[in-house]
């Protein structure tokens, strides 16, 4: 294992020390609870947005805390859900009197821990909490026989869009409804060229030969649905875009936000090359791109590979997308 670390056990806490040191103007970090907050604290009357999950997906979620996006992010160990104590503390701290929305990616551990936090918060009284669970990964069959689709790329877009709505003063119910609507309007599909190494495990989560790729991966170094021989980017783009297009039921004339996300170990030059292939495919399908996002936003440590997320976007979605955002991971208009 070659990593820029001191001790595998300290990776998360030392990374949070670095985030606090790098962004004192925007972030405040509760190091005991491993929670990233906005430096300015909660705003009276604004719905608080709390997310969180395992670490190793940076900049998500801590890097999306700030004006126009999240109010707090709870960091778990690498690829391990945070615990209810953290979500409870974050929920209380960001409540500006208008309630708190939990944004949870659909993984068994995340869902159970957020559920326990919501139960404890209800028993504790005081803060009104609603939750939205993202599950946009078309690689996973959504059936009674799986844990359901995973929450991946749409989570980033949702945190931005619902963050803008909360900033405008919408109610908790309105924010929760919008979040549900955004989740339903987006789908993703990912692939890996390499595995990744969880620092405390010390070796790659799975083995992938030099001439192989894994299609339908998630963001935790878990193997995907199928292993295939490595193919040109053009063919890989088709393997990712087509299932998303058909699952979303997109047709000629529809507009989307198109998001090509890097898994952490793939350079931007390749992500832009992929974006070109994706945009060609969308043009061929008659789908127009209203906005795009290209880069490493929801990663899987140093895994090489990418995912494609398409979000059906009407004018209102685009307006909220364009609203000012000022976070370490995403910034425009502010």
């Amino acid at each position, binding site marked *: 294992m070659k990593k820029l670390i001191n001790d595998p056990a300290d990776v998360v806490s030392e990374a949070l020390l670095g985030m606090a040191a790098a962004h004192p103007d925007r972030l405040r970090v509760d190091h005991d609870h491993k929670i990233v907050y906005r430096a300015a604290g909660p705003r009276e009357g604004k719905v608080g947005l709390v997310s969180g999950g395992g670490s190793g997906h940076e900049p998500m979620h801590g890097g999306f805390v700030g004006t126009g996006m999240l109010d707090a992010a709870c960091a778990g160990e690498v690829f*391990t*859900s945070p*615990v209810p104590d953290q979500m409870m503390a974050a929920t209380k701290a960001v409540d500006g009197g208008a309630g708190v929305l939990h944004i949870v990616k659909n993984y068994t551990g995340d869902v*159970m821990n957020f559920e*326990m936090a919501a139960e404890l918060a209800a028993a504790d009284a005081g803060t009104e909490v609603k939750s939205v669970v993202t599950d946009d990964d078309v690689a*996973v069959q959504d059936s009674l026989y799986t844990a359901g689709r995973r929450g991946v790329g749409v989570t980033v877009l949702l945190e931005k869009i619902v963050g803008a709505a909360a900033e405008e003063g919408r109610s908790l119910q309105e924010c929760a409804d919008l979040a549900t609507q955004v989740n339903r309007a987006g789908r993703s599909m990912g692939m890996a060229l390499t595995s990744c190494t969880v620092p405390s495990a010390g070796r790659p989560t799975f083995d992938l030969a030099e001439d192989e790729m894994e299609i339908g991966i998630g963001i935790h170094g*878990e193997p995907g649905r199928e292993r295939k021989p490595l193919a040109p980017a053009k063919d890989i783009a088709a393997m990712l875009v087509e299932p998303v297009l058909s699952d979303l039921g997109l047709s000629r004339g529809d507009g989307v936000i198109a998001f090509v996300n890097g898994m952490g170990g793939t350079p931007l030059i390749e992500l832009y090359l992929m974006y070109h292939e994706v945009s060609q495919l969308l043009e061929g399908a008659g789908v127009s791109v209203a906005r795009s996002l290209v880069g490493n936003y929801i990663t899987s440590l140093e895994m090489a590979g990418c995912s494609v997320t398409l979000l059906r976007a009407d004018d209102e979605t685009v307006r909220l997308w364009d609203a000012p955002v000022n976070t370490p991971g995403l910034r425009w208009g502010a």
Partner: protein
Amino acid sequence: MADLQSFQGWMADYAEVVKEQADYLTDLDRAIGDADHGINMARGTVKVAALAEAEDFASSEAYLKKVGMTLVSTVGGASGPLYGTFFLRLAGPLAGVADAGVEEVGAALRAGVDGILARGKAELEDKTMYDAWAPALDAYATATADGADLRGALEAAAAASARGRDDTLDLVARKGRASYLGERSRGHIDPGATSTTLLLESAARTLA
């Protein structure tokens, strides 16, 4: 009979076992999950083992509740809420019981496993820890009906749990992260079922 001291001995023993088996549990999880089960369980059980030193507990019930909360707060993932809920519920039937016999421990185990079901919503043969718990409860009940004492019932439960764990090898996962693999989850033993069997084997050594 199981009293506060034996429950504390159970947790000390389990922490040792998890420490020894942590790499093995993580390896099992690497095959069909995300390679952290041993690491997470070791982090939590070390904290649990330290409770007896750090605090005086008035009863088995109070101690086991604290064990549950500690696991919920330290393990993370799905195992934290599942094992945490198990111990929180296990404590219930032991309220006011200083020395628990085979009947009381049986009621507590059933309550704990009901908690796991409520939290995880797993069914038999979903390839989860429940596949190790369900046969254990059955064997415990049968042994009790046959007149076994606490040790005998726990030994029967641990042995049945081990068979349930081994039977997860051929199952296709329908819950948890392994379910994303579909058919590819077949041929691997479930890590949660494995840590469950270790917990019951540890109980058979320490609680009677």
